[in-house]
């Protein structure tokens, strides 16, 4: 009996230690999550319902009167239709999203497949795709800026052309973002492709299946969950991604290549930031979350319901 009691105590003591250990290990990340993720988001939502008020020479964020609680949202919606700067930003966000979806994603899958199948030239594609991932974003920005600014004007026969200020700027940005995003896509697609069982491929090869058919009938359906993740994440980032504009232009990007992520960002940081604009920027963020969240969930639902599914 005594032995059993001792065993029980020991086991409880062991469990207690384990619980304490787990609690200690999780406490910090949970605290960080609560403060820096939940707390910040909650504060953003609250801020969107406030305004910056200066009373007795002291400034503070006060809740708007109930009757005009939606003032910041009204301003954000109004600007979406009337403010040329916001219209440009919205248009560019959509352009960048569509380019990502219709161009970068298929290209990433294509390049990944070349690398995966070790088709001649795959090493070159590997270097090209991974290079931006191996260097820091700022170094990439500087290298790209210098190279393109020197080379492109001569290719176009206009030595005085300022690539990042003239009509070329949007095209160059689309190219840059497609390129730097390529590497991350390739890494994930390659991970998904290498998980495809060899047996399946071998069966196909024994059946005399062509490379294109193998890609279409085996590879694509099996990596579709990864594609779904990219499409869903793309929709979620449609209104928040600033596409490296800040790295290139600081807070002074030409308005006609701005996008919504950048528009909101420079309202709270840099030369144009003002305390009174924070609630407006928050409202903008909340507004787009309200639009993006249901679209994201809907896209996810549709892709999972109607997209090819396979378990392996």
């Amino acid at each position: 009996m005594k032995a059993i009691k001792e065993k029980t105590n020991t086991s409880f003591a062991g469990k207690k230690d384990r619980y304490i250990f787990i609690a200690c290990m999780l406490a910090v990340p949970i605290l960080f999550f609560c403060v820096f993720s939940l707390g910040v988001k909650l504060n953003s939502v609250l801020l969107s319902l406030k305004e910056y008020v200066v009373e007795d020479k002291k400034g503070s964020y006060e809740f708007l009167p109930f009757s005009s609680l939606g003032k910041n949202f009204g301003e954000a919606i109004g600007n979406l239709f009337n403010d040329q700067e916001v219209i440009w930003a919205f248009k560019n966000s959509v352009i960048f999203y569509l380019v990502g979806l219709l161009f970068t994603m298929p290209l990433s899958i294509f390049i990944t497949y070349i690398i995966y199948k070790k088709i001649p030239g795959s090493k070159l594609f590997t270097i090209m795709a991974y290079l931006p991932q191996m260097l820091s974003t700022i170094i990439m920005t500087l290298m790209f800026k210098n190279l393109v600014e020197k080379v492109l004007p001569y290719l176009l026969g206009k030595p005085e052309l300022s690539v990042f200020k003239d009509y070329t700027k949007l095209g160059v940005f689309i190219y840059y973002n497609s390129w730097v995003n390529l590497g991350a896509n390739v890494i994930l697609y390659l991970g998904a492709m290498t998980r495809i069982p060899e047996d399946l491929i071998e069966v196909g090869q024994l059946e005399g299946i062509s490379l294109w058919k193998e890609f279409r009938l085996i590879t694509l359906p099996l990596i579709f969950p990864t594609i779904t993740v990219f499409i869903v994440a793309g929709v979620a980032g449609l209104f928040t991604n600033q596409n490296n504009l800040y790295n290139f232009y600081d807070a002074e990007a030409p308005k006609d290549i701005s996008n919504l992520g950048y528009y909101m960002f420079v309202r709270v940081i840099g030369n144009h930031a003002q305390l009174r604009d924070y609630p407006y920027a928050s409202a903008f963020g909340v507004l787009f979350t309200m639009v993006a969240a249901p679209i994201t969930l809907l896209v996810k639902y549709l892709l999972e319901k109607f997209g090819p599914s396979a378990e392996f």
Partner: protein
Amino acid sequence: MKKLVRLLVLALLTFTITFGSFACGGGPKPWEGKTIIEFGCYQGGWGREWLDKAIEKFQEMYPEYYVKVDYEKSYEDLQSKIVTGKQDIFYAGINLYDFLEQDEFMDITDVMTTPLNEYLADSEIPITETKTIESKMTGTWQDMKDYCLSYDGHYYNVPFGGGLWTLNYNRDLFNRKKLFKDKDGDWCKADGDLTVGQDGVAGTYDDGLPVTYEDFTELLEQMSEEEGMTPFFWSYVDGYTKHFAHALGVAQDGKDVFNIFKTMNGSYDFDGDGIAETAIDNTNAWKLRNTSGRKFALQFCKDVIENGYYDSQSGKSNQSHLTSQKRYVQSEYNSKRGGNIKPIAFFIDGGHWHNEAEDVIAQTSERSGEDIQFGVMPFPWFEGCSAEKTTYYISSQNSTLCIRKNATEPEGCKKLLAFLNTDEMLVLSTKTSGIVRFMNYEMSETDLAAMPYYYQSTWEAAHNSDICYTICANEKIFRNFNYFNLGWEWDCTAPNGLPLNNPLENFKASATSSVTVQQYFNALYSAGPSEWSKNVK
């Protein structure tokens, strides 16, 4: 076995800690036994030498203090340090009211209003200056003072200093190419019998330089057609070209017109509107984007672009402020060595550029074996301009010195602040980096002679001309300073729907190069009301 492992681990730890201490320098630290003052300093164009030298002197005067400086190259990071960092005293470019309304700064009225010899009476080396800091902010700097006091009648900051937005030119190149004008109207060197320049006084910095736009055009033609030079060059930094064009307009309109804008009170006779005088108040001051001086500024920029009076690398993104300074400084040297570049006459940048380019200037001078001295010159006047005197627009207007409200060492910080504003230190900062401090002080002939010509000419220009700056006690302006400092100047939309915000760059870019001066001018007017209602609260 366990004991042995424990002993080994213990020995290893002891060794690591002991070795670590030695590696970090076991000797006495310079701050040991002293009270530390933590200083947060923006290390921009004015560099750090002025502060390093001042601190060295301060520590001689107050050996009980040690000043630790955190030099910060990012505005944003320094601003967040004002709120959350450990630094107590700051030199930064800030929107003052954002911080005052958050109760971040210490009341320093006593520092400002006590004679400096009394405030610093306990220093090891006596200070003899009997003036107060406040008393130095009169005349030209009165608006700065009013701005400081506009919050609640107390001082919370000391405005720092800046340079001039104007034409920076290579004086030695001008000399070698004989681009000065003598009284007979001939081109000559700087030692010729020069014309008296815009100030009308002989023996000053603007002698032999163009007075009117006609003179200036003649100079541009001479340098580009006869001397094989490129007149203008500028970097990628948009702010510089925007302010340049704005300053050009201010120089034409003169201080009186600029003051109508600052006070948003007065009247102005707009060209061609059929009204003799339009009353200006804080609801329609946007109309002052359409002064005749600003139209001339647009014309000036258009002429520069249309006549190809600029270097092909101007405004390109690989021309950072530092790279472009180097290109400008070395242009003559590289052209002689067969480089694909012509000597460049004018460089568009803030007044701080010379301090930043000091090393490049010295190196180039050494390599080429020739003097390379730069200078500032007034903007030429167009026919019918309303300025009655040479007028300059100041850079770095929002640079300031301030102390955190709950500073750990308030007394030390205040003494340091007072010390940094003694005449000796004002002179030192001008001598070291060419900053024109926003106060009244004198430079001796010896001090002036010891400075590069660029600093001398800046000093002379700043003290014998009308000086304009946006910062003032007008609430509409200081509450919206970010807008008035950048967006106000040129933001509008071209007839083809593209954004305009920088005359030189807009006239250069192919998508907007067809916009005429009149269209740009009209666009400024059309965008005025919406820009105003959106940005001026």
